[in-house]
Each structure stands twice: as structure tokens, then as C-alpha cells.
């Protein structure tokens, strides 16, 4: 079954963590605008995202960010006599994420849909990350293996077709981005940890310390990063004279090594046609470089979304919404937030 999607213009809203974002995307692929207001400065002094601070900021920012998305798209959000506004549906992330933060976007999104008399579509944040790759690489041929790594998720996903995924592996403890944050905090490098470690590693020797590669040869596609973090802490306590850039570079090397070894093995196991990277950690320069090397070596096309598409944004929400809208139709207005939502299983 296929639903009528009008001009196909979807306003997407994303408030699952610490970015307030809105975007307008036409027919799932053409980004007319994408506005992201990051709260990173609000959370930096706490060394991590504080849910209550994030939720409060979303309430203050949601309307200005939505308004800006219309301005940048050159569209009107003003309903004129009888006609609706310039978008045909409103979509919002309903999970997974911080419940208080998600509820702001879901509530605002449903209210906008009601006020403009257009359908509402609830979007799975993880599914949207998979669609971020398609936004930057419309030619992408399925099936692909997607490595989705951020502060909240570490997943190897087999994307068989639109709306058909299999999670092949995930983390059993910390997410990859969380490990970066924790190690950066321990090394006194500040928050967010990913960019801080990336920066300081440039001057370090990645072979200085041979940190463990947890779960590397265990035959699964799962990860564990908490032991690696402990190894870093123990090493530095035992060798206080060690250079911080060397520790950071060696830690980064271990993380990237584990991530890519497992991703390549997964691609081989399912006979994927390509490899794809997503999530905030996909902005890591070593991961990007090694990812492209691995694709060359394995003779497999690699899809590397732009930095803006890797991190949380609303264009990916609007894009995923359009595909879901076409296949499943609009969502009811009694939709709530599901903080522990997983990927829809085929």
C-alpha cells in the first residue's frame, strides 16, 4: 500500500538528546533546509548531557528553530485563507533518547500538525541515522552494512531494503562516543570527548601503548568499551609520566581498530554491497580515513556522509519520515515518546 504524500514536503523535528533541530526535506532526498541548534556549551561544564537542562533548552529553542527552517527553505509557515502552510506533513523523533527531551519535540510536532491540518509522522531516531547516508548518497545500492556510532549508540546494522534492517551487533556496555567522553574526561581534555581526543591524537604515537581490543576475536559483531576505558585509566595510573597525546592516539587506534574489524567481518558475512558510516563518532578523522582504506582494500563502495549528516540533525528525520509515510501512512495524534525504542525489526 502506498499513501498520497502531496508535494512530499516534510518538516522534521529532532529533540532526542542535546540538539534542537528542524529541517524541511522534499520527497525524502532533497534537503530544502536543515537547522541545528547545539546545546553543547550548556552541557560542557558538566562533562556530559544533563537531561533536565537539555529538556528546558528544547522548550526555549523549538519554535525559533522551526521558524528558521522555513526561512532557510524560502517557504511559508503561515496558513493563508483555507490553504495549509507550505509543508505536507510534520515528523518528529519519538525514540530512542531522553524522555523529557523527546516529549518536547513530539508535543510540538503534533501541535504543528494539528494547527496546519497535515499528517503527523513519528520517526525512529536510529532508522533516521540510516537514512542520513541516503541523503548524502542517493545512488547508494542496498543492501549495505551501516556502522552507527555516537554518544548513545554503537550498532552494526544490515540495511537490506527500505524499512528492512537487522541489527547484527551492538555494545554490551558503553557506547563508542561515551568511551571517548569518559577517557577525555579522565585525561583532562574536556567535553565533548570525541573532537578533543581526535585533536590531541594528531601529535601522538598510536603505537605507543598496545591497549586491549575487547571482544575482537569472539566471533560476534558485539562491542564492549568499558574495559578499554578501564585499561586506559590503569595504564596512566601505573605510568604517570606517559604523554597524553600518546595515550589518546593509542586509545583512538584501539577503538577504530575494533569498530572497523567487526564492521568488515559483518559485511563479508552477509555479502553486503557497500559500507556506510553514521552517528557523531563518524566525524572522527582516523575512523573516516581507515574506513575508506578498508573499503578500498575489500573492493567495496564506501559511503561516508558529511559531518553534518553524521551528527544528530532533522534532515534525516524528515527523510526517514517520508519513506515511512509512503509505506505506513500517518501516525495517530496520541503518539507518545519511547525512550528505549530499538530499530524496527523486519
Amino acid at each position, binding site marked *: 500500500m502506498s499513501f498520497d504524500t502531496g508535494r512530499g514536503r516534510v518538516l522534521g523535528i529532532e529533540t532526542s538528546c542535546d540538539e534542537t533541530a528542524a529541517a524541511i526535506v522534499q520527497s525524502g532526498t532533497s534537503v530544502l533546509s536543515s537547522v541545528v541548534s547545539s546545546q553543547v556549551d550548556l552541557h560542557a*561544564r*558538566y562533562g556530559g548531557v*544533563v537531561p*533536565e*537542562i537539555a*529538556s*528546558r533548552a*528544547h*522548550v*526555549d529553542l*523549538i*519554535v*525559533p528553530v*522551526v*521558524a528558521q527552517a522555513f526561512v532557510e527553505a524560502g517557504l511559508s*509557515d*503561515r*496558513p493563508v485563507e483555507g490553504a495549509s*502552510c507550505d509543508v505536507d506533513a510534520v515528523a518528529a523523533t519519538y525514540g530512542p533518547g531522553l*524522555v*523529557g527531551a523527546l*516529549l*518536547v*519535540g*513530539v*508535543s*510540538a*510536532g*503534533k*501541535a*504543528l500538525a*494539528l*494547527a*496546519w*491540518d497535515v499528517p503527523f509522522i513519528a520517526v525512529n531516531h536510529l532508522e533516521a541515522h540510516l537514512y542520513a547516508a541516503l541523503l548524502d548518497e542517493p545512488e547508494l545500492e542496498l543492501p549495505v552494512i551501516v556502522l552507527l556510532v555516537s554518544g548513545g549508540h554503537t550498532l552494526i546494522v544490515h540495511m537490506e531494503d527500505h524499512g528492512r534492517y537487522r541489527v547484527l551487533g551492538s555494545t554490551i556496555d558503553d557506547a563508542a562516543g561515551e568511551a571517548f567522553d569518559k577517557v577525555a574526561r579522565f585525561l583532562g581534555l574536556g567535553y565533548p570527548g570525541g573532537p578533543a581526543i581526535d585533536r590531541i591524537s594528531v601529535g601522538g604515537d598510536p603505537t605507543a601503548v598496545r591497549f586491549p581490543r575487547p571482544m575482537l576475536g569472539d566471533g560476534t559483531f558485539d562491542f564492549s568499551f568499558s574495559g578499554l576505558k578501564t585499561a586506559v585509566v590503569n595504564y596512566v595510573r601505573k605510568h604517570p609520566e606517559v604523554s597524553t597525546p600518546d595515550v589518546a592516539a593509542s586509545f583512538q587506534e584501539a577503538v577504530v581498530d575494533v569498530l572497523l574489524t567487526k564492521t568488515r567481518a559483518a559485511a563479508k558475512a552477509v555479502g553486503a554491497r557497500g559500507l556506510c558510516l553514521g552517528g557523531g563518532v563518524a566525524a572522527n578523522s582516523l575512523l573516516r580515513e581507515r574506513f575508506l582504506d578498508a573499503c578500498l582494500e575489500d573492493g567495496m563502495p564506501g559511503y561516508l556522509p558529511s559531518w553534518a549528516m553524521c551528527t544528530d540533525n532533522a534532515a534525516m528525520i524528515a527523510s526517514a519520515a517520508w519513506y515511512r509515510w509512503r509505506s505506513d501512512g500517518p501516525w*495517530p*495524534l*496520541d*503518539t*507518545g*515518546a519511547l525512550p528505549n525504542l530499538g530499530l524496527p525489526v523486519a
Partner: protein
Amino acid sequence: MLILGVSTSTARVGCAIGGHEGILGAVHSSRGRRHAETLTPAIEFLCRQTRVELSEIGAIAVDLGPGLFTGLRVGVAAGKALAHARRLPMIGVASLDLLAFALRHSSRRIVCAIDAGRGEIFSASYRQSPGGVQRLGDPQVGTPDDLAAELAAGKEELLLVGDGALRYQEAFEGIRRLELGDSGVAHPSAGSLVQLAHARALREDFVLPADLTPLYLRRPDAEIGWITRDAPR
């Protein structure tokens, strides 16, 4: 002018539509803290039942709290979105003021107490004034025992209402001049919100969606911890 009022600061979710001819309709429900699930369908239902199109609404009123942070944000975010989408002005009213307004015909001193979680309540006192009530001082956050001690020290006849008053009623049992309002008046009413907002709308006492902020009356946890850690020893 027709006003749509939204109140979500306690366990009860409410919305109402009204104007110069009074309240045209109101919907309240309070099961399982499903604020986000309930609110939008309730507004849709209310519009259908009152045969009012959203395009006929002239202003959006919201309950600003204090109250349940998460619940509160559902109503404020939805209210701001509706106001922005339809280019409507907004009016914000404190939850405690709404509780007191519903009891404006009582001659007693009215004390409103909303559950603040963590063993605390948000409270404020009111006295009658022409056409409504007048708040005596800013809303406070504190323990039920602190409020009880303060109330026991006075001489006036008191009417204590709110979900915070009911939850901690044993703290107030010893005060003889005090009557406790039942659950029927324990939550802010969306009808009161529309009535109060209508009076303000006549004076064109509006705010823009961007300028409307919830009344939290309490800092986020992490900030409290940080300030304590940071304080000079």
C-alpha cells in the same frame, strides 16, 4: 475573542475553549501521566465538540507551572507550537493562581500547594479581590512541614488546596483553622485558565511564543550540584 487554554502542570491534563460568552467546553483527564499522548487528541476532540475551528481561536493560554517538569513542558511546547503555527498571541498563568481562582468565592485565606516531588511542595497564598484573587508574595518551594509551621503561626481561617496538600495532608492535620479542599479542586482547571486569560486578553496583555517560559522554581539537579561543588569553601 476565543481562547484555547492548555494545562498540564500536574497529573491532570486539561484543555478548554471559551470567550466572552464563558466556557464553551473543557476536557480533563488524569490517568497514568500520559500528558503527551492525551493532549493533542483532547484539543482535537474539544474543537469538534464545541464546533470551533482552530482558525477561529484568537489566543493561546498556557499553565506555566510550577509543577511536574515533564508534564509542564508538554503543554508549553504544544501551546507555543500552536501559537506559532496560527500566528496567535499567548497568555501564561501560574498553576497556583489557577487553583486559587477556582475558589475565589471563598472568604477564607486560600493556600495552594502543588506537589513538587522529592518531599517538597510549591505553594502560594491568596486573598479575595474584586472579580478574582490576589496572590500574596511569590510562589515558594519548600517542605510541607515548613508550610504547616508558617500556617499554624497565623490567625486567619484557611482553605488549603492542591495535589501537594492532599499528598502531605497529615502535615496539616493539627491546624484547627484550616480546611482541606478535596480532589475536585486539587488540580488547575483549564476553564479557570481560559477565564483568567480572557480578562488579560481584553487588556491585550499578551506575550509572544518566544518570550513565554515555564515557571520551574527549581534549578536542574546537575546545576545545583555544580554550584555546591563550586562554592568557595
